[in-house]
């Protein structure tokens, strides 16, 4: 590894650490200093005596100076102590652990489909630039892009669940069902995933199609494409081997930004389909004003997005020749 690559890596790692610290500080200020003082929130509901409030403040460490509270907060974060949920009466960390897997399961499939189908459709549109197929791909992408995710889910529920009775419309599996074999259970899970996945793919795919298309259209006007054609390479070799390869850089950036987008999508889709994941958790927590859960879920979302961006920076080390050969 050359010295400049080490420096690139070092500066990216430093950026990640600073951003993570900034997110944690932001979270601390929002929930511990703004109206989110947990004792005031609890006192609002019940009839607490002043001495009870004082005891609670001592219990939560709120009688300490702000900087001391901040360091305790950071220490708790690092040791995975995220507090106790008001509504579930369970440690928040355990709640998150149960829910995270369900969300990852749902989003992984949708993400793979969005990226793969999006790239292929974008390449096809760009390779026939100006054709009727190209124009209708652009218009369709813009249309899907404009759909509200939650409403798309509601409409799919109505059509495929309520009207046609084809697919289950809520949850991650049939409640209370006992399956004869592992495969019956797996098929049941898959059937529950179909509608939420279609919703996410429909709403998010437009962006990938448009980015891939415009990036490839750009690359196809470059001189090296003309050279490749002049060498007598086949149309397909020129398109995929020279064009697409060089057009994928913006797509990698878009994939990292997509993680932030798909989290927003997950909140809506999980709410609509009662999918027991992180998104449904934050929706429930917001309705019940369960602040420790809102806080921790938000933090986890933010950390995920920051790490995804870091991952795309690392990917650049491998695929971008300007960084790779530096």
């Amino acid at each position, binding site marked *: 590894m050359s010295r400049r690559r080490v420096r690139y890596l070092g500066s990216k790692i430093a950026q990640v650490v600073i951003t993570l610290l900034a997110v944690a500080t932001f979270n601390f200020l929002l929930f511990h200093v703004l109206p989110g003082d947990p004792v005031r929130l609890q006192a609002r509901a019940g009839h607490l005596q002043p001495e009870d409030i004082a005891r609670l403040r001592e219990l939560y460490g709120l009688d300490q100076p702000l900087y001391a509270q901040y360091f305790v907060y950071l220490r708790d974060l690092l040791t995975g102590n995220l507090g106790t949920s008001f509504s579930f009466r369970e440690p928040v960390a355990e709640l998150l652990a149960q829910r995270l897997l369900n969300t990852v399961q749902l989003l992984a499939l949708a993400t793979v489909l969005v990226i793969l189908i999006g790239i292929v459709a974008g390449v096809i549109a760009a390779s026939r630039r100006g054709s009727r197929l190209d124009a209708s791909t652009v218009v369709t992408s813009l249309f899907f892009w404009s759909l509200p995710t939650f409403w798309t889910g*509601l409409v799919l529920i109505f059509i495929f669940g*309520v009207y046609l009775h084809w697919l289950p419309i809520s949850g991650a599996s049939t409640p209370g069902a006992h399956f004869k074999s592992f495969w019956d259970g797996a098929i049941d899970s898959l059937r529950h995933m179909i509608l939420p996945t279609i919703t996410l793919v429909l709403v998010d795919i437009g962006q990938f199609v448009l980015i891939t298309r415009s990036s490839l259209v750009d690359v196809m006007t470059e001189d090296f494409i003309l050279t490749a054609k002049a060498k007598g390479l086949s149309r397909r070799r020129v398109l995929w081997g020279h064009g697409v390869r060089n057009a994928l850089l913006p797509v990698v950036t878009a994939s990292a930004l997509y993680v932030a987008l798909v989290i927003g999508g997950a909140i809506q889709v999980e709410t609509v389909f009662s999918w027991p994941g992180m998104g449904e958790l934050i929706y429930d927590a917001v309705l019940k004003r369960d*602040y420790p859960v809102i806080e921790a879920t938000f933090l986890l979302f933010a950390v995920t*997005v920051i790490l995804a961006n870091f991952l795309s920076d690392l990917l650049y080390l491998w695929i971008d020749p300007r960084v790779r050969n530096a």
Partner: protein
Amino acid sequence: MSALAAAAPEQDRGRVAAARAAMGLAWSDPIGRVGFLLLALSVALAVVGPVVFPFDPTAVGKTAADILRGPTAAHWLGTDELGRDVFRETLAGAQVSLLVGLLATAISMVAGTAVGLSAGYSRGWLGGLMMRVTDFFLVIPTLPLIIVLAAVVGQSLGVIILVIGLTSWASTARIVRSQVLTLRERVFVERIRALGATDWRIATVHILPNVLPLIFANTVLVIAGSILAEATLAFLGLGDPTHTSWGTMLHSAFTNGASSRGAWWYLVPPGIGIVIVVLAFTLIGYTLDRILNPRLRNR
């Protein structure tokens, strides 16, 4: 392409003409024209609709049969869970969506331009700090951030506008900054500085107007995003309960099980409303972007 030549930095007077020419080019593009027509339709519905068909939120149903009832001669698009007229309610919702979209975007543009301008123009620590703050807001997932802020700060229409506006400026700031960085080095700025202009004057009078055409398309797209954000927030139960919007309607529809009860008339109209307005701004924004963005030209 004459519009673009006129937008070149040194020609201040051509700017209004250039903006008009860009709009004209967008109108002659089929995608752009559909966008303008959809926008005209939704503005007309939002302005005229509530006058012709006023919505009275207290006009609830009198018997159980009035509740979640399908379309009839009296209620063209049926009734909601309180027996109110869905058609009139949908027309009333248009205003809130457009209002939130436009005001939030205005806040976002002012914040984004101010941050981008100072980040690009000042060479010292201020510029660096501004850029770090921008990157921070670019990275944080927007919907969870808006949800958290709305949940902590409150649910009035003003707060919602402020929250959406103050969470969507980062991309604008980036575009402005990168433009300012190249403009700053131009000869005409050097000349003005030699004549004794202050930094403030150079930044606001000479650089800012040359940046505006480029954020024009971005502005239109931010409106679409803000309208979607308001609808989503309201759908999740964080809307202003005292104002009817398409998002709050869909929230009630969802919590009252409209889709599983087959009440399509309650589900479809507010959703179509959102799609028409958002699609209008998306189509216009996409077309303007192709016309105004030098990198995307000739596509």
